[in-house]
């Protein structure tokens, strides 16, 4: 009896095994191939999502392309009438006068001068604020101060413009008697204050992205707080900080209201920040406000100036995005 049952038990267990294996293989095949209807629904859903994401991205790309096209066409017409050599080398900008000159230099110098003053204010202050917020201030104080700092970024620029014209300029005139009512100095100072939160906020984010372990590594070598900030945090977050500076510059170059209100509307080639001058954006505003007929040379000057401005800010933005990407890659 016992002799008989042994091979039989072995046999049944083998068939049970085979059945189990077959059942599992069926399950695997079914899962991998999937319910067709379910998969189709899933694919349709993924397709809808992908195409709506693509559409959202395409809108901004198309807008940029449209802007470049409009700027390009009108700028091209402009340079058919005015030589590009004159545009770059003439020292006068008088397209609205009878004796016309088309030198971009007075506008470009004014823009660069006011932006430089703004950067001289916002870079050191913004960086110091960022270091303070990220490394020195107690967390609770930093949590209170940062929103206050960011309120600065929310003030409308027209308010900054009148702040410069009606408060900063009279104040400065007490110390600098020959300061003109419209001048690059107070416009630049106020613009610097306006972009300070941008620098501070982005630089602080870059510093906070430095891993705690790097700070601890430096402290463990006997570094003081200042040495940690100076030798570890700043170098490690440098590309983020530089990116915030470049974004700030492009913001300053493109800033309009402050320079229109506080810096004047007289295009003169001058490097003296105490005098009035006209920035590129201010010129565009001046001409667009007047009744300049479509297709005239005056009309086309707007686009030539606009294209110049666009090129400058685009180069700066591309540069800063490249830097930002590099700084993101370091720590993940």
């Amino acid at each position, binding site marked *: 009896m016992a002799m008989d049952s042994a091979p039989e038990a072995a046999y049944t267990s*083998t068939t049970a*095994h*085979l059945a*189990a*294996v077959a059942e*599992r293989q069926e399950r*695997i095949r079914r899962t*991998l191939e999937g319910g067709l209807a379910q998969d189709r629904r899933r694919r349709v859903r993924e397709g809808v999502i992908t195409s709506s994401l693509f559409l959202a991205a395409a809108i901004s790309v198309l807008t940029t392309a449209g802007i470049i096209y409009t700027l390009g066409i009108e700028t091209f017409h402009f340079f058919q009438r005015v030589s590009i050599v004159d545009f770059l080398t003439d020292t006068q900008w008088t397209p609205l006068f009878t004796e016309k000159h088309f030198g971009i230099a007075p506008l470009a110098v004014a823009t660069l001068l006011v932006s430089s003053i703004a950067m001289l204010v916002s870079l050191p202050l913004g960086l110091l604020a960022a270091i303070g917020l990220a490394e020195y201030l107690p967390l609770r104080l930093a949590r209170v101060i940062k929103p206050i700092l960011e309120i600065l970024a929310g003030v409308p620029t027209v308010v900054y413009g009148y702040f410069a014209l009606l408060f900063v300029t009279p104040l400065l005139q007490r110390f600098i008697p020959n300061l003109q009512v419209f001048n690059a100095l107070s416009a630049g100072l106020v613009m610097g204050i306006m972009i300070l939160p941008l620098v501070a906020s982005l630089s602080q984010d870059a510093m906070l992205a430095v891993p705690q372990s790097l700070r601890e590594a430096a402290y463990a070598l006997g570094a003081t707080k200042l040495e940690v900030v100076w030798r570890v945090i700043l170098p490690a977050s440098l590309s983020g900080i530089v990116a915030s500076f470049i974004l700030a510059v492009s913001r300053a170059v493109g800033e309009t209201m402050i320079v229109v209100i506080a810096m004047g509307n007289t295009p003169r080639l001058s490097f003296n920040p105490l005098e009035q001058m006209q920035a590129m954006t201010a010129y565009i505003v001046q001409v667009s406000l007047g009744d300049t007929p479509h297709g005239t040379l005056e009309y086309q000057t707007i686009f030539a100036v606009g294209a110049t401005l666009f090129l400058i800010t685009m180069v700066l933005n591309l540069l800063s995005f490249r830097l930002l990407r590099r700084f993101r890659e370091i720590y993940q």
Partner: protein
Amino acid sequence: MSEPLVSVTVRQREPAQRLAEREAVAASMTVERLSAFYGKFQALADLTFPIHPAAVTAVIGPSGCGKSTFIRCLNRLHELTPGARVSGRVLLDGVDIYDPAIDPARVRQLIGMVFQKPNPFPHLSVYDNVLAGIRLHRSRIPKPQADEIVERSLRAAVLWDEVKDKLGAPGSSLSGGQQQRLCIARALAIEPEVLLMDEPTSALDPIATYHIEELIAELKQRYTIVIVTHNMQQAARVADYVAFFLGGEERTGRLIEFDTAEQIFTNPKRRETEEYITGKIG
């Protein structure tokens, strides 16, 4: 390196249970001429070896030999890295998971994974972490059924007794070892055929490691397990089979030897294997 040595006698030296019996319990995998690339860099070259059912296969080798890349090829996670690609075949019970007709998301329903660092979703509770995989495929699960899945999975991961009173707490509130077992429970909840573990204890203390190793010994009764480990003692403790990789010229990982754990650790065929397990290289 010459031809990788895969012992033909493995089947005659089966650990403990017979292979046929284990085949009935869990799925097996076969790796055929598998190569993996990151852009132009070849991380793995021409791997061929079996992954036997209801057993633990350990992948060992020095840093940079492609162990982690390999295990990520087994559930098609490798291809998520930009520029990464794979050639060769990986069969799950005879079905090629790299078949172009197959959706990689479906492969990962059958082949679960546990990572080096415990990664419970921090925004979900213990309970919801376990159900995360199920909820991807079925939006509504009746509460009693969900309770049953959570309890079964947590019991399978030997975590139930420790967390049954705080199922609503966030997953990140558990200790490291508990988090890792929660991740194992999360992987088991979707009832995979194979469980991949990429250095599952390298971020854990010795006691938590011991718990995980005990759990692995328990789980291999029902699941096919592939574990990457840095730690040779661990491989010796948990593995039934061992694949030894070595990054050869240009750091491309190759299979040096595959055999039963006993054979690898007592009588390796290749000089490189012996040097590695005795600590002379790596």
